[in-house]
């Protein structure tokens, strides 16, 4: 009798982790671009766009959940109460895990700095030609991006950079065998 295999987020292979990161970061922006370029100008009916919108949003959510499931035990930020609660009772990170977490945080800061810099530069470029109107519908995508992607960024970077796990000799009992 073959025992059922349990899904273990820690065994997600790097190529699939990277696909999840791409899906998480691509889904919502594509949703916004599609809406503003097809639905808002009236080129496509809302009813026709709805399945694509649901699929793109589901793509983002699936990517976020997969990446978070992979990296949640690894991003223990003791200074942040939410993560302190989330990681209580879990084993401490060892030196390799701390090293890769620190690399992920540093790389996240660099990526965030680049994105903020490019956004400010683009806004300055647009503002030099025409006034920028900051109403709520216009700001909503940026609010969502800030609320969703900025806290998610270190998790995504960790999932992106970490090498595949070593050969599957002796997993602890109860964990699935074979990389997903």
């Amino acid at each position, binding site marked *: 009798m073959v025992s059922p295999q349990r899904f273990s987020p820690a065994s997600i292979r790097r190529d699939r982790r990277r696909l999840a990161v791409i899906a998480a970061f691509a889904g919502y922006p594509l949703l916004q671009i599609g809406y503003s370029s097809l639905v808002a100008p009236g080129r496509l009916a809302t009813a026709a766009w709805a399945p694509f919108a649901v699929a793109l949003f589901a793509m983002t959510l699936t990517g976020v959940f997969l990446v978070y499931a992979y990296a949640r035990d690894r991003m223990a930020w003791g200074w942040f109460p939410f993560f302190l609660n989330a990681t209580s009772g879990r084993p401490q990170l060892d*030196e*390799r895990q701390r090293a890769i977490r620190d690399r992920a945080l540093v790389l996240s800061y660099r990526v965030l700095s680049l994105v903020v810099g490019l956004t400010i530069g683009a806004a300055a470029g647009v503002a030099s030609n025409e006034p920028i109107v900051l109403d709520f519908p216009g700001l909503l995508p940026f609010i969502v991006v800030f609320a969703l992607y900025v806290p998610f960024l270190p998790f995504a970077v960790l999932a992106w950079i970490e090498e595949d796990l070593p050969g599957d000799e*002796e997993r602890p009992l109860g964990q699935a065998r074979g990389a997903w």
Partner: protein
Amino acid sequence: MNAQRGSVERELVHNRIPLLRADRGLSRTDLAEALGIHYQTVGYIERGEYAPSLHLALRIAALFGVPVEAVFSLEPFGPLGVDALMGRPAPGS
């Protein structure tokens, strides 16, 4: 980041942990628990994908009861000689 990754690749540390584990009858999980690290970290060290800190390297050597240079080396380890396989002291030692 590329420079950092490059330096990590250059700093490959060879080790005999799989051999010592097999000799002592330890699994990766056993070794990891004895050292207080994650069992996957043992795998990364064994594959040469993570160079342990000096502190951890010394603890690994102490756990096996051998000098640290018997476990880790900057050069690849050669095959074990007959004396080592037979448990005899090496000539001149």
